[in-house]
């Protein structure tokens, strides 16, 4: 019953790079960001600041404890954003646990079937209305334009407004 091998998750890019599992995971994330047109490379306007970004690594497990996936996620350093300049509204609703239980109880009692889906790269779906600039991701700096920054078009994980941008899109 006990999970014997606990995979070590790297804490920064330097620790992960060179390991094929994590390199793959990062390539996958970059491909998703590209396909989604999350940003375009632009010169940073003089009066703007670019926020940093970093890689976060996570080993995902199945319900039985076995490894299901190696996941690399590019996150923006949202804590460097300033209210009123980089973001405004941040509230986004999620379902209450009681609501979820009530709906499940109701579905069971009525004999309805229950299904599940998940959204890939959920926050990347949200459109960004504010102007946000971010440094190029570690390991994936454009060699021909190393001085340009990412002008964000879509929300990115850990941006203050990311959850809000997503809930606006779906509701």
């Amino acid at each position: 019953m006990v999970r014997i091998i606990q995979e070590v998750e790297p804490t920064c890019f330097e620790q992960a790079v060179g390991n094929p599992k994590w390199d793959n995971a990062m390539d996958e994330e970059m491909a998703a960001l590209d396909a989604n047109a999350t940003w375009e490379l632009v010169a940073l306007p003089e009066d703007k600041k670019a926020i940093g970004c970093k890689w976060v690594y996570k080993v995902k497990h199945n319900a039985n404890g076995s490894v299901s996936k190696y996941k690399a996620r590019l996150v923006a350093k949202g804590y460097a954003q300033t209210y009123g300049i980089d973001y405004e509204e941040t509230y986004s609703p999620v379902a209450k646990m009681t609501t979820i239980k009530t709906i499940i109880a109701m579905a069971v009692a009525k004999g309805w079937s229950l299904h599940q889906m998940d959204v890939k790269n959920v926050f990347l779906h949200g459109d960004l209305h504010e102007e946000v600039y971010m440094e190029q991701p570690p390991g994936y700096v454009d060699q021909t334009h190393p001085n340009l920054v990412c002008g964000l078009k879509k929300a990115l994980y850990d941006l203050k407004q990311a959850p809000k941008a997503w809930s606006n899109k779906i509701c």
Partner: protein
Amino acid sequence: MKKTDHGIVIIVIYVDDLIITGNNDANIFDLKKLLKQKFEMKDLGELRYFLDIEVIQSPKGIWLLQRQYALNKLTEYGMTGCKSILIPLEQNVKLSADEGDLVEDTTMYRRIMGNLIYMTITRPDLSYEVGVVSQFMQTPQKPHLDAVRHILRYIKHTLQCGIFYEAKNQLQVHGYTNANWVGNVSDRRSTSGFMFSFGSGAVSWSSKKQPTVALSSTEVEYKSAAIVVCEVVWLQKLLSDLGQSVDALVVIYCDNISSILLANNPIYHVKTKHIEVHYHFIRKKILAKKINLIHVNTENQVANIFIKALGINKLRKFRKMFGVLEVNLSLRGSVENSSSTS
């Protein structure tokens, strides 16, 4: 939620996780197809694992349990080898804020608290105990950590327990409310608890220290009942949003006769004049025939689980009344048999 002539489809969204249900499978599949076109989505089929909660579907009903989550946490805190224990907290133990030496690793204490609070999603039998130990998060001391370990050992004992919702059941809502007067030795505040079950299993419950000091046990029970009535109002709203009829009177069980009398009879009394606001709120709902407060014997008062540590026999009995049962997949075995945890 979408309602059409062909039926009803409900989507629950928790950031990137979606639960979809409805009375017509064709509609569900159409919706899935539509969602897949619009967003990049993965169809995970039948609901099985959601926010670290296992969902076990069987023809008899559905279990929600956090077995794997609990096991991971026990491993994380090096508790897998511990001796399991039958009750979450010793009876009659009163913990206060000033108990002795400070715990060395306060961050760990707080982290365990977070995990325990998450565990109460499917485990009403832990609510009171977790509520008690979480009151010492600011300055956790050795006896508090001992109590936390006690809870973890109980969790090990009840790893296979989860909430069970029986299939094809009557959708009757009923609630229980209870309170202990001056339960907290340090600040003399009282704890109130309630639970609501919907069909066969509990869906909503709470064990919470009241924000103000109460002058009598009647007042305490009365305020507790007011909290329940708020929950009823919300639950009825939710059910009507889900397309269910909510005309039926909701029965709430309470073991305090004087607070029931007070709610039903508008007599002015010098000892109750200061609780006027609560009083009007419940009265209005009773007059509108939305709820009915009914007396229940303490023996059958399941909300007792939220206001004090119970002995093993009562704990087992109430756990069963909540629908907290051991997962049992032998489909021929009756639900009754699967509930004995020992």
